[in-house]
């Protein structure tokens, strides 16, 4: 394991929390400068990404991002690409300067990520309900090829509306897959309403358990708890793992938190300033 491998990086909880705040500030600013929506959905999953990429949970070396034995991360809720790109740049997969091109004409940093456009982007996303199935295929390939990697798929709660999610959920345990993790950013909103009301989503943990998964409820903004759950994969049960990360849409900015208008709204310059002030990153 090289020093540059993400699994070798060790930070104190306070440092990780500071990284989260800094990233949230960058993401709010990016939404403004790039004129990109889905800010609320991007802010709810920041701590999940920080736990994964800075918490020592991933066996990926950003300096050797195509190693066959690397862990794979799929952002299935592709509309949170601002968070994904920001963490990839932050951890050295590509230059932070590239973030300035996000959503600009000709950029590879598109509003929804494209496989292989840049290192660290393992699958194309944007249409919901594809990532888990692709992740299952990858996990299966790892088992067949005797490569010891794990696959981490980050989904949204609204994404669980898609039938294909449950097709994959039923097949993975039947294939005795244990190198597959789904992390659900359960921010309780989808585009037009409460995710628990539009479809009968709850009890979500029990749903995954009944489909044959090891399922855990976790505070999706408690980085230490997230790291604890994410660092024990496979978890010894012989099953794939579902982590229900309970989050707040727009987390970190008081006037955005749990306000679904920020699914589509783009902050103006003044709102960016207020947000960064609140985050302590101005």
């Amino acid at each position, binding site marked *: 394991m090289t020093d540059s491998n993400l699994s070798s990086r060790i930070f104190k909880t306070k440092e990780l929390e500071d990284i989260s705040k800094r990233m949230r500030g960058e993401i709010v600013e990016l939404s403004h400068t790039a004129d990109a929506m889905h800010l609320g959905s991007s802010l709810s999953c920041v701590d999940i990404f920080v736990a994964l990429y800075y918490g020592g949970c991933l066996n990926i070396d950003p300096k050797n991002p195509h190693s*066959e034995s690397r862990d*794979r991360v799929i952002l299935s809720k592709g509309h949170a690409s601002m968070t994904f790109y920001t963490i990839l740049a932050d951890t050295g997969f590509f230059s932070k300067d590239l973030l300035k091109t996000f959503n600009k004409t000709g950029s590879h940093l598109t509003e929804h990520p*494209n*496989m292989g456009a840049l290192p660290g982007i*393992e*699958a*194309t996303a*944007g*249409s919901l*309900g*594809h990532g888990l*199935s*692709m*992740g*299952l*295929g*990858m*996990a*299966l*390939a*790892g*088992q*067949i*090829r005797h*490569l010891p990697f794990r696959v981490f798929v980050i989904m949204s709660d609204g994404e669980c509306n898609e*039938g*294909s999610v449950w*097709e*994959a959920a*039923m*097949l993975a345990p*039947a*294939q005795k897959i244990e190198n597959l993790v789904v992390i659900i950013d359960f921010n309780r909103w989808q585009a037009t309403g409460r995710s628990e009301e539009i479809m009968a989503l709850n009890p979500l943990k029990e749903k995954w358990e009944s489909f044959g998964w090891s399922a855990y409820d976790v505070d999706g903004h408690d980085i230490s708890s997230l790291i604890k759950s994410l660092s024990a994969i496979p978890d010894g049960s012989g099953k794939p793992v579902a982590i229900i990360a309970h989050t707040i849409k727009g987390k970190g900015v008081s006037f955005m938190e749990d306000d679904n208008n920020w699914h589509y709204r783009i902050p103006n310059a003044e709102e960016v300033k207020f947000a960064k002030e609140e985050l302590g990153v101005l």
Partner: protein
Amino acid sequence: MRSAFAQELADLAASDERVILLIGDIGNHMFDDYQEKFPSRFINCGIAEANMVSMAAGLAICGMRPFIYTFTAFDTARCFEQIRVDLCYQNLPVVILGLGGGLTYAPLGPTHYICEDIAILRSLPNMTVLCPGDAIEVRCSIKEAMKQNGPVYIRIGKKNEPVVHKETPEFQIGKAITCKSGNDVCIITTGTILPNALKARELLERKKISAQVVHFHTIKPLDLTTLSTVFSQFDLVVTLEEHSLIGGLGSAVAEWFVDNSTRRVKLLRLGTRDEFLYTTIHQNEARDLYGLSPEKIAEAIHVQYRKLH
């Protein structure tokens, strides 16, 4: 055709450990030999085609060469968006085997037979569309599909189709095969209706009409060289397919013809009508209904030929 696929795939899996077969809960005992030899590379994905296609994409991203197999109504139309995004947009080497193209499963109704698959799949960037004409061409198609770096759709029939080729032909994706030469009319056809084209040719011969039969086993990419040659040599060109007249081989040829042909040539397109069948009907009866039996093909060509001469 399906047995040829099973045998060819078993041979392929023996020589290439990247090969993996995903089935959608069909093929009872057909893959026993394959499954016994390569248990870890045989996945019954259940009746869940959307997941099966995306999963194949994930396998391909990680170095495997997946083959997907189920009824073509299910592994094309049902999961079209997964094919579009995960296979075509990502441009991954996944082969979709579509069992029962055209009117093969007409007795099972429009849920199981499909005459729109070529239209939807050839509209997708990066997709290769193959319609082998017999079991020998099925084997060739699979071998050639393995050489591709992107997605391939192979439309096959079911079982006991007539074998057209006496020996393995020179088979190259995007290169049509001239099965029979002729002087008066050229029949361009594709897939399992090929034997009917050959029978129609015999019937036309009795009426002193000499027909050439060219098999376009590849619909995408179209063999433009052969099309140019055919349209420069014949005044009457007929497209024949067990597929809707909307979007299939006939459409592809007509599109090319409108954009490129410099000669006055009569193009006659034979295929299925823009409708569903609501009552029980068997494949040959349905073919006859749509004018795709050898007799009706010959008659349509005869009438058209007489109009021109």
